[in-house]
């Protein structure tokens, strides 16, 4: 995973850096001191290297914990693993927030649409029934009026 690659690459960097700053080079640069104290020069060099390595390793540990790098690397590994089967480039921000936000709204809009359809269907059904009873009511009123009319004529 990424955490392992990160550690390996940093270790490699350190190794090559140490190799570059070899004792021969060190001795050549400090030749005036090396001539007088070769053994001391060696011990100083060895301390230099171990100190450099340990301080860089410390820095790396601090960076890792400060940025939660390992956690991030592991979760990114997982995400990458999950996307393994996807071919082709995935979505990327378009740079137009108004447009990008649409996708976040769509699920809710779809839900809202089906809710509205449901409400509308229910409402139409109810209204159909009420309309039927209104029509029935109208018929009834006409019927009553006719009966009254009949009585009235009978009287007349």
């Amino acid at each position, binding site marked *: 995973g990424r955490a392992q690659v990160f550690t390996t690459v940093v270790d490699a960097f350190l190794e090559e850096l140490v190799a570059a700053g070899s004792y021969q080079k060190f001795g050549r640069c400090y030749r005036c001191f090396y001539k007088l104290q070769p053994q001391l020069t060696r011990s100083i060099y060895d301390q230099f290297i171990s100190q450099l390595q340990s301080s860089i390793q410390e820095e790396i540990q601090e960076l890792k914990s400060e940025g939660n790098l390992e956690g991030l690397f592991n979760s990114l590994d997982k995400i990458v693993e999950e996307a393994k089967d996807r071919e082709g480039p995935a979505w990327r*921000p378009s740079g137009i*927030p108004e447009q*990008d*936000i649409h996708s*976040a*709204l769509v699920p*809710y809009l779809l839900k*809202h649409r089906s809710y509205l359809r449901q409400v509308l269907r229910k409402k139409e059904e109810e209204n159909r029934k009420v309309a039927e009873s209104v029509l029935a009511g109208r018929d009834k009123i006409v019927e009553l009026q006719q009966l009254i009319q009949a009585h009235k004529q009978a009287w007349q």
Partner: protein
Amino acid sequence: FDELIVETGKRRKQWPKKILMHAIQTMKAEQE
């Protein structure tokens, strides 16, 4: 520039949910 990128990334990560909440509240109020 770097901070802008990080800040934008943060907003891009967090704000859609917030905006969605507000959008839902708006639509519900409209519906009521």
